[in-house]
């Protein structure tokens, strides 16, 4: 049995300890925000926050999560009550197929969560450099991160 803290709730699960966190979130907890993209920590689609840091959940065994507090896309907000980052992505219409967008939102949450002040375009591009998008939505994603920073009062 493994106990995890996910989106503020304690969850105890009967899973093989080598199971990547991603499969536990998706298949056992039905949290479909994080996506399977590569299983190699190369694309970022599976990103979650653990203690505020962006982590590739496809490549982290569930047994290694320990007491870390896991937050998924669902833990940020809902369609009715989106998190400012999610609202910014909606406002900028920053998704095409949307498969990478979980990673973009979660990477942004870690990036903006760890800093003060509005990020520059260059800083945003650097922060997202290990998140891949194939549809070519990059420009809107960068705009959404800028907007999110403003919504979150990062300029203050």
């Amino acid at each position, binding site marked *: 049995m493994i106990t995890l803290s996910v989106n503020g709730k304690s969850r105890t699960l009967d899973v093989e300890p080598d199971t990547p966190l991603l499969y536990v979130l998706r298949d056992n907890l039905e949290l479909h925000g994080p996506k399977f993209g590569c299983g190699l920590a190369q694309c970022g689609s599976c990103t979650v926050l653990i203690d505020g840091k962006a982590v590739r959940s496809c490549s982290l065994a569930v047994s290694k999560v320990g007491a870390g507090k896991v937050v*998924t896309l669902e833990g940020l907000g809902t369609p009715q009550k*989106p998190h400012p980052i999610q609202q910014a992505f909606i406002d900028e219409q920053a998704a095409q*197929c949307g498969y990478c967008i979980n990673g973009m939102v979660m990477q942004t949450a870690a990036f903006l969560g760890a800093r003060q002040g509005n990020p520059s375009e260059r800083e945003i591009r650097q922060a997202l*450099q290990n*998140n891949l998008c*194939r549809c070519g939505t990059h420009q*809107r994603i960068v705009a959404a991160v800028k907007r999110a920073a403003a919504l979150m009062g990062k300029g203050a």
Partner: protein
Amino acid sequence: MATLETTRREFLVGTGALVVSFSLAPAARAQMVGAGKPVAPDQVDSFLAVGKNGTVTMYTGKVDIGTGIRVALPQMVAEELDLPLDKIQLIEGDTALTPDQGPTWGSLSVQVAGVQLRQAAATARKALLEMAAQRLGKPPADLGVRAGVVFVVTEPQRRVSYADLIGDQSFNLKLDPAAPVKNPKDHTIVGQPVPRPDIPGKVTGTHIYIQDFRVPGMLHARVVRPPAIGATLQSVDESSIKAIKGARVVRQESFLAVVADSEWAAVKAAKALKATWSSWEGLPEPSKLWEHVRATKIAKDDVAVDRGDPKAAIAGAAKKVTATYDFAIHTHGSMGPSCAVADVKAGKAEIWSPSQAPHWLRREVAATLQMDPKDVHVQYLDGAGCYGRNGHEDATCDAALISKLIGKPVRVQWSREDEHGWDPKGPPTLVEITAGLDTQGNIVGWQSELWVPKADITEWPRTLAATFAGIAQKEAINPGNIHRNLDPSYPFANQKAVAHRLDSTPFRPSWIRTPGRMQNTYANEVFIDECAAAAGADPVEYRLRYLGDPRGIAVLRAAANLAKWDQRPSPRRDQSGTIARGRGVAYVKYENARTYCAGVAEVEVNKQTGAIRCTRFYVAHDCGQIINPDGVRAQIEGNIIQTVSRTLKEELKWNRSRVTSVDWASYPILRFPEVPEVVMELISRPSEPPWGVGEPAAVLPPPAISNAVFDAIGVRLRSVPFTPDRVKKATAG
């Protein structure tokens, strides 16, 4: 319709408008299928149903693979019916409920399916007005419509709603091509940047992708691929996975898979399974690809254009220019590996798939399972973007076959290696062009030859499941309409373009976004730049010498203006230092029949490392009537950025047995710091037909970047991708 169980709702948060989309729960679906809803493409009822509650359900065989037609098509219907968008429900790609409007390909969803839906709506509106005229005792000409309510213009209190006229009943009408459509100047919904209904769900994790879909009793499956493309399975050691709880082997001939209760167990079993395969080394030596292409048997020649006497014109010309261009083999590179769910039992197959072509897929699955297509029901669910035929259809046939073999519902999830290694590929493309120039540098003759595989355009490519399982299938190859745009978008007096259609190609091909049109335009638009340079002419001015088409001239001028085009011949010779900057142009009339676009690339070339950065890309775009300008912009951004990636980075790698570029490290794509700023101008022509947007602008980056690099450093790049190594090699001459 009231009995339908809504399983998914998404809201247009941005505007406060509501669009409901839903996938049908199995019980409700069975009821609908049994109800025998018409799907023939000549019937209004196939496309539209007015509910008693005042909503209109619209049905399309096209699917939204991330392009935004989920809002654009409803905009077209809502406009014709004078109905608010929140009263429209859309059902996409369910083979039992939607008309077959062809695969979602070729940039045709709005242009063909949308126009068909618009005509269905216009026919319905005409019929509704006639019914209302009877009811209200006034001729249709005296009636108006607002929000689905027909009223007498002079006495607006005399009115009747669509729901009261026909709610829950059939129109029993054929599509009337003469039914009047709205005057574009009266459009209030078409032409507006309405937000997409799926984005709130996609950014909050509530949107249901195929990867998220589950059915009761379902097992997780992984297909075990051989170490060589043409290998056959000799033996399997089932005991090699006996330590993995609940995992077991499924096999038919060389088709090998594992199933398990949990997804992780299936992943582990696929990795652990010991199998012996025959050896196979049937692929060409990678370094000899182009020799292989030239040596491949030609099945036939297609003549794209043959006008005047180019041979004589070139022979008599003052100057001759010749060049050869090649474009590497590419993969689709979907972010999410392909996935599908199948439930095959009692002679029926229920299929959930992200395929761009549900109606085709129904026949493919039927062929794989050796069933009648009428016993196969395919429902579309979103996957990761496919950009052509990627692995979705193969994964679906995998799932169908495994489900049939074990008699249980099955979910197949491909791995990253499966997707990069086994999706069908964009074939290698080789073009040779020769032109003759007169003493003023004008083109007097143009001859081009293209080497690409033949296409059985109405057939689907061989599926992996049928191939390995030994199931009879047509030996078709279909890379799409890859001969289009071989004829240049300029009406030269003497020109001939011939496509040598090869009998085979090294990797199973399919179409990748902008198939052939991208590669052919790349060759044509670099070549005309080479002619301009030979003539000492400015590249924009040189193109304008030949362009007679006013809409073509307008987009080329618009792109040049947007980029503040510096009029002079290329290359520029005023730069010293390590980084050289340049600008290059490209133009196309898509398939020489529709959407016009022109682009200007700005690049920085590092002369020491050979690295190219495309810093900015300007596009001018005329697709006629614009349905949703924000959707058009998103598609153009995507076309440019994806194709800049293809141009600078992408190339399939292989050895004699298999693909070796099987992840994002070995098949790199463009990353955020490398993405150009895309600046665009949309030329809106509301009174023209709406043309495709999902592909055309993708032709621009390869030639515009090659031309910009030439402008920067005077070196001509004729081989995609333009990697630093190739730049250094070309520089060294």
